[in-house]
């Protein structure tokens, strides 16, 4: 690898890292603004024009708050919890293909940090590591509400990972690869051979299962039981204050961003958009438009997360487990069988 390539990769990593942080920051603002619009209110509008500076004000507040570590808490684990949460949230973006390639001079830049051939597995590994941040934080707090929240989070995430994985298997039977770049390439354009190329039109049931599981994995309403205020004070982060609390909240928004990106890549064509090669544009312009298309899809999914939050009330815990084990897993297995049968017939 040449030095120039290393520098390019490094710059790419920094840009992606910065973008995911900025998106997460403005997701907090968007969450409040969207919530306000859904409730016929205006929302934050005092910090800067239309409240644009609100996330900065929130961040500043978080930094200036008193840092509390409870006396009976295990200090090392107490700090390790939020660090792990934000770490696992951030490294998920490494395998997502953000666009095709840019050609600058003699360099061809892949808009992806690394194209490993087990990208989907990598994402799953990172997602399941995310539970540890919550679990460790809840355990280290030495508080029964935190522990209950952490236990809920752990069992919920583990239950829903199963059906998420099963729904992905049906998708992988179609794509035949675990590389996210290749999966995105297979969904090239929008229409070919008399059918849509995007996977959502080949795997509608799989997508439905996947998105329900994504809600559960990111602890969003209607599955926000780990932090349900009405029962558990604040859930696993009850004892947290200052920026450590900020890290937990931030990790949740980054997770939301990453899972939106994964959903867009796996099921909604990633950076592909309709008529991408009928516009008569150069390669670089198609790539840039593709990146914009991917971000449009991601922003739509983030909006959808918020939209659902203000529509559906929270599940009861037994209902959550019922849905996960008795409905989604059988459905996902049926989806695999169906995909196999249809795939064999139409081969």
């Amino acid at each position, binding site marked *: 690898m040449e030095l120039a390539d290393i520098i390019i990769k490094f710059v790419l990593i920094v840009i992606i890292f910065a973008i995911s942080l900025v998106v997460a920051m403005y997701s907090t603002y968007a969450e409040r603004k*969207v919530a306000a*619009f*859904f409730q*016929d209110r*205006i929302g934050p509008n005092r910090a800067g024009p239309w409240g644009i500076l609100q996330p900065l004000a929130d961040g500043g507040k978080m930094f200036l708050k008193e840092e509390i570590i409870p006396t009976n808490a295990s200090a090392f684990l107490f700090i390790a919890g939020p660090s792990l949460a934000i770490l696992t949230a951030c490294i998920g973006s490494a395998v997502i293909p953000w666009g095709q390639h840019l050609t600058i001079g003699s360099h061809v830049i892949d808009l992806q940090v690394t194209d490993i051939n087990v990208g989907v597995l990598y994402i799953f590994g990172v997602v399941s590591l995310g539970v540890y941040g919550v679990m460790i934080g809840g355990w280290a707090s030495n508080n029964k509400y935190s522990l209950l929240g952490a236990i809920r989070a752990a069992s919920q995430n583990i239950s829903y990972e199963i059906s998420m994985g099963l729904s992905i298997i049906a998708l992988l039977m179609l794509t035949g690869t675990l590389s996210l770049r290749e999966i995105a390439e297979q969904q090239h354009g929008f229409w070919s051979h008399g059918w849509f190329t995007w996977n959502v039109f080949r795997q509608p049931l799989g997508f439905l299962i996947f998105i329900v599981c994504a809600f559960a994995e990111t602890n969003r309403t209607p599955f926000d039981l780990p932090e349900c205020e009405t029962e558990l004070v604040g859930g696993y982060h009850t004892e947290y204050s200052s920026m450590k609390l900020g890290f937990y909240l931030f990790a949740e928004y980054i997770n939301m961003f990453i899972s939106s990106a994964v959903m867009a890549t796996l099921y909604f064509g990633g950076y592909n958009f309709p008529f991408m090669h009928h516009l008569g544009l150069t390669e670089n312009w198609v790539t840039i438009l593709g990146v914009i298309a991917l971000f449009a899809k991601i922003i739509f999914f983030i909006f959808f997360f918020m*939209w659902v939050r203000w*529509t*559906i009330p929270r599940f009861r815990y037994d209902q959550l487990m019922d849905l996960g084990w008795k409905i989604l897993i059988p459905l996902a297995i049926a989806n695999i069988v169906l995909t196999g049968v249809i795939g064999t017939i139409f081969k």
Partner: protein
Amino acid sequence: MESLSNKKKLIESKPLNFWERAYLPAILSGLSITMKHFFRKPVTISYPEEKREFSENFRGMHSLKRDENGKERCTACGLCALSCPAEAITMIAAERQKGEEHLYREEKYAAVYEINMLRCIFCGLCEEACPKEAIYLDGDIVPADYLRKDFIYGKDKLVEAPLNQ
């Protein structure tokens, strides 16, 4: 038992059919309802910049009126204090001296007139009791403050501004 009021309703609880149990159509209709609200005009009134209009008979902060020559109408008769159910009003009367005719309309006036805004319930009985049409609750909302003692409003805050100033 037979219902006497005819308001009794029999509620049927049918078992849910397949689509109701599938939960998804209900979610979709819920999403469409929230989406309608997303585009609705916000009902918020951004308070300090924008104010909701008061009704005509709104009772706000009291003001002690002056007559057409700018003299204070109040004669410190004490009827307002007597009528006040919350005992919010106190006053000390004084006799008008020579040379003060342009200030006070009658020979007796209120040297000190205090209303405790924390006690006041804004019922308007003082304004009904006043024989001189000297007190009206026609002001704004009483503003917030930090200390209890600052809610006792004296004549400096209550009396109308003089005519020619």
